[in-house]
């Protein structure tokens, strides 16, 4: 029963140690204590008397755990009403994590709260001597997340995109990614949109080939990244979300068609060669009853 020793399947409540208001709809909670989560893994967050849902680990340094969430509905709005000292339960960590090799050149694509786990990935990968092209996108300036944190990391070139152009590139971050992949293929130059912090020697010059692409964000963004990286034959790892209850592979609520794999166990981080076989990917997902909803 190895799996048990690796994860807690019984929630334990922790007191909120700090709350950071990231944007008017987004908050980050800090908890004392670690579940030993790896970047890309999630925990089941329990608000006693309210509900329990999956949330990506935004940071876990072995002592503290951070969660960043959008207030979009019943549970997350209740979460947003919590104050420092309130009790929140956690169990986990669950699921797969992003995998890389030391020294790789990796493109991170983050949309919405995806910026949080992506910061966690970035912090760990630069430890391993990786260099990063980070593409952060949002509707507009005020919805951009984790820019400061990402900028504070070494070996990170930040590429910002907003739909309304209120900051950085006007459009989608995936378009920026495509530009870079083209450039890399052509071996040519690209003009850098967004502020590229402490440009690496090669900046503005030839871009080193991208070893792989990690993405976390809205499913349509993920779908675009999937097609793009398939087209350019670059390995990618995408964080897919489906409705989750147990978090460890028995309730079956997070299973995807037609593979039958459970995204709480064989995911949430799925390699693109598997993603392309998930026919419902980008098309539909199921609710708590197993009913299909198209995106």
């Amino acid at each position, binding site marked *: 029963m190895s799996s048990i020793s690796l994860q807690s399947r019984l929630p334990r409540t922790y007191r909120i140690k700090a709350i950071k208001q990231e944007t008017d709809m987004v908050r980050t909670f800090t908890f004392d204590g670690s579940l030993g989560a790896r970047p890309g893994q999630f925990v089941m967050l329990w608000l006693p008397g309210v509900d329990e849902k999956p949330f990506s680990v935004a940071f876990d340094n072995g002592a503290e755990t951070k969660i960043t969430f959008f207030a979009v509905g019943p549970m997350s709005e209740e979460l947003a009403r919590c104050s420092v000292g309130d009790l929140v339960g956690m169990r986990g960590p669950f699921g797969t994590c992003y995998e890389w090799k030391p020294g790789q050149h990796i493109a991170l694509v983050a949309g919405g709260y995806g910026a949080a786990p992506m910061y966690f990935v970035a912090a760990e990968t630069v430890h391993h001597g990786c260099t990063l092209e980070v593409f952060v996108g949002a509707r507009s300036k005020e919805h951009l997340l984790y820019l400061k944190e990402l900028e504070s990391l070494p070996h990170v070139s930040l590429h910002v995109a907003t739909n309304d152009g209120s900051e950085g590139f006007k459009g989608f971050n995936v378009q920026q990614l495509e530009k870079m992949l083209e450039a890399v293929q052509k071996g040519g130059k690209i003009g850098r949109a967004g502020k590229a912090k402490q440009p690496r020697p090669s900046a503005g010059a030839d871009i080193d080939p991208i070893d792989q692409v990690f993405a976390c964000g809205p499913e349509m963004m993920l779908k675009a990244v999937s097609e793009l990286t398939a087209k350019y034959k670059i390995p990618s790892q995408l964080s897919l979300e489906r409705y989750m209850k147990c978090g460890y592979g028995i309730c079956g609520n997070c299973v995807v068609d037609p593979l*039958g794999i459970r995204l709480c166990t064989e995911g949430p981080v799925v390699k693109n060669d598997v993603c392309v076989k998930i026919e419902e990917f980008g098309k539909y997902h199921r609710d708590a009853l197993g009913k299909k909803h198209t995106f």
Partner: protein
Amino acid sequence: MRLVFAMLFSMNLSQTILGVTFENPTVLASGIMGITASSWRLVAESGAGAITTKSLWLKEHKGHRNPTIISTEHWTLNAVGVPDAGPEKAREEIGSFMKKKPVPLVANIIAESGENFAATAESILPLKPDFLEVNISCPNVEDEFGKPFACSAPAAAAVTKAVKNVSGNTPVFIKLSPNVDSIAAIAIACAEAGADGFTVINTVGPGMAIDLRSRMPILANKVGGLSGPGIKPIAVKCVADVYSATQGKLPIIGTGGISTGEDAIEIMLAGASLVGVGTAVGDRGVDVFAKICDEMQLWCTNEGVDEISSLVGGMHQELSRRNAPTRKPSHSGTFR
């Protein structure tokens, strides 16, 4: 690994029960990875001899809020509340599974009344499930519907009759609860009402877990049914009771805390023909079915058992052989 075993031990695990052939005795228990055809296929590819659907309702039914499933190394508590999208989805998923059916399918149905059990059966039967499994023992909807039918012999018999009236020649398995004075008495009542077999057992208790700091029950439903290794002795006892109460004439899907091949053999010796596996999917992985089969083959080969069916009810035969006959089904038919 699987393959290696499969080649080393060619012992045949297949049985034919009520006209249905099972490549091996393992059956995915209801409610585990049981929502979609894709899920059932993966479980079949992972070695299950048959799959059981999550309980199906006549209409869409909401489950409980989370937390619905929690566990420790000793127990799992669940109160999912039997959510279901209703018959349209059931038709779509079961239909797609039956088109290219890898293993037999057991359709598990649930309802709040005898008539609706019958109506639900009628809505599912056209999809030609191999068995119907009637869940009269869910402890997690007492709130809505009161004590499970499985806790009263007349109520259990009434549901059985209602379903049998419409089931034609599809075998009907009644899923029993361990949380009763005498499971044997319930089984006898259902058998007299025409049950073709039994699934023994549903979850135990219910039980409760409390978070010390918040002082709140952890499950949103406050209480939930117990499953996993801790309940195996209760499942084995209940299977033995039902087997002797029905003189071993009706097949039993022995379910409860089965994680290994030796567990499977133990519950077969108590009287099970097939072996349900649920919680262990979370503990040993979805390939727990292949693992259990490999372990059964290894054990049977070492012990010179060449007919898997020869294990069924073996304990009862051994007890009579030693002419310490198990009590003839007294009112309770319980072992003493």
